[in-house]
């Protein structure tokens, strides 16, 4: 993966920085703001600040992470003063099964039901678990990134994801029978 990034971003240090940190920062802003536009604006502000700072790309990854997250939390705080904080996170799911090429109608129906069932099961999970599942599968974040977004310890978010998947798994097994 690292190699892949090198090929892509050989002479673009700020692109590498963006690629590495933007997804988690964006997930964080989405959680904090009322609109996707606001989250995009805040993300832009953080990386503009990084450009101003100038030398960020040359620092070690840990220092980059610490710097970017500190700026992000400040930007979010500024934003709340102006626009107000979002009170809920979008955890909605649409169980639409679009990719059904080569399937028999009965098979399609069964798959659709299975997917709807999974969505239902997710909706019944406690909110923190739903959130972790979303950050993992909807944002592609790692455990440490999820921990940054939720401002929790990594052990906590690992446990949340583990519990969520366990619940989903058992529901799957019941569903199969």
């Amino acid at each position, binding site marked *: *993966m*690292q190699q*892949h*990034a090198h090929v*892509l*971003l050989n002479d*673009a240090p700020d*692109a590498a920085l*963006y*690629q*590495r940190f*933007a*997804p988690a920062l*964006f997930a964080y802003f*989405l959680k904090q703001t*009322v*609109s*996707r*536009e606001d*989250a*995009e*604006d805040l*993300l*832009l502000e953080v990386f*503009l600040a990084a*450009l101003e700072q100038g030398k960020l790309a040359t620092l070690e*990854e840990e220092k980059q992470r610490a710097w970017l997250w500190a700026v992000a939390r400040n930007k979010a705080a500024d934003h709340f003063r*102006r*626009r*107000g904080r*979002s009170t809920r*996170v*979008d955890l909605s*799911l649409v*169980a639409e099964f*679009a*990719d059904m090429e080569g399937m028999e109608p009965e098979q399609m129906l069964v798959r659709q039901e*299975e*997917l709807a069932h*999974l969505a239902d099961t997710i909706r019944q999970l406690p909110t923190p678990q739903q959130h972790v*599942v*979303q950050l*993992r*599968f*909807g*944002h*592609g*974040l*790692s*455990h440490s*990134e999820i921990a940054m977004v939720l401002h929790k310890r990594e052990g906590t978010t*690992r*446990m949340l*994801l*583990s519990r969520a*998947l366990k619940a989903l*798994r058992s529901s*799957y*097994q019941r569903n*199969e029978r």
Partner: protein
Amino acid sequence: MSEANAPLPPEDTQTGHPLAQPAEEAQMLSDLERLYQPLVARNARSLEHVWVRLEQHKQQRRGGTRASRLPLAYPGLQTKEQSMQPFLSRFSQGGAWRRAMGTLVAVVVLTLLVGSMVAVFTLARGKTAIGPSITGTGPTATSAILPTPTERKPAHGLGTTVYTSPASYDDFYAFAWSPDSKRIAASTQSQVQIWDATTGKHPLTYTPKGGGGSVLALAWSPDGTKLAVGAVSSDGLEIINPATGKVIRTLNPTTALQTAGMGPEVSTVPLSGGSGVSAAAWSPDGKFIAAAFFGSAYGNKVVIWNIQTGALVTSFTKHTGEISSLAWSADGSYVASTSYDQTVQVWDAHNGKVIFSHSADQGGALAWSPTGTHLVFATDISAFQVWDVATNTQITSYQTQANASIAWSPDGKAIAVASNTDVILWDAATGTHIFTYTETGDYVRSLAWSPDGNYIVSGGNNEAGGNLAKVWNAAPLP
């Protein structure tokens, strides 16, 4: 090794639980991937959009070199698919949805190419290539030509909700009323939905040809026969027939400049993602259309065309940030524009000469009074002001949080402001509060007053999703 960029291996998501039934487990993980696919795609688009804006800032700082004319995608890459790759690569490779995405992108790229060729061809011929067509109209389109007569007199009091959009529409960036107040056009994510205003009947869906990006601009022509549609990642402003959903013509500022022989900056590079149209407005007589463009392919500019000939009248390039709102004065003389550069500018529609300028909220909203003498705009995050443009004097000021949308009632008496999760009606003359509509349920992104003054349509683009458009009585005002 950056953990962030690595797909989480199966045993990682297990966190200690053995893979008892690998097939079942794989099925569950793949189903989870499917369920979250729409969110993944939206997030990748957002990340790309921010990246493109970041690049624009960098290029502006460098002083707009020749390089800024190049299509601006993710570093070293050209196509949308590749540019989104860095953000999609976090997910397991070869998923079915990724294949679907690839196909979609291929279609989009092809459409872009073909679309821009058509636009060049159309403009070169100097006339409309595809007229409003009555052939091939489907059931919805046919019925849409003759909207069901609806009861126009509000049966209930101010603020009564008469229509709520279905949950399948979401994210309302813009609204436009037909001039007879019978139909509403709304941008819902990357599509345009048109319906009978108070009943939702005779729905018509239009998907912009330039593909994929949010539809930020909608404007219905004064004679009702055309709808201007502008999107992110579009290849120009699309003029469609709102009754059939057929494209009448596509107006592209790059080719227009070329055609009109204006400026040396002729781009032969196909336009890629990250550019688009952010606002559009018709002249009151319907003869001209103004559109605000952004992105590396265009720069931040407003372009005015003669809609009949496709000839470029003027282009306004004084904004240094993306233009968020555009409005034409009632007499057709002036265009007002506001931008992320934190200014509002009023300029002559014929030659682009600025006659009024003021600091403004970043990316704010504005509206003209129906008489065309007064302009209301957000001055900062918590206030907006009414100015007499000709005399350069401030008339009124309102302290309220201003979202990105504002409308002046057709009778001139009231101003509607989207404010956080409410729409607030203010007395335009005195600045006193008239009414607060609270049933939006979410952050209000856009609103529009019906030309007959009876209704307001408002809707949000809250990330929490489930945004609804509401049509509610906005008359009679006290």
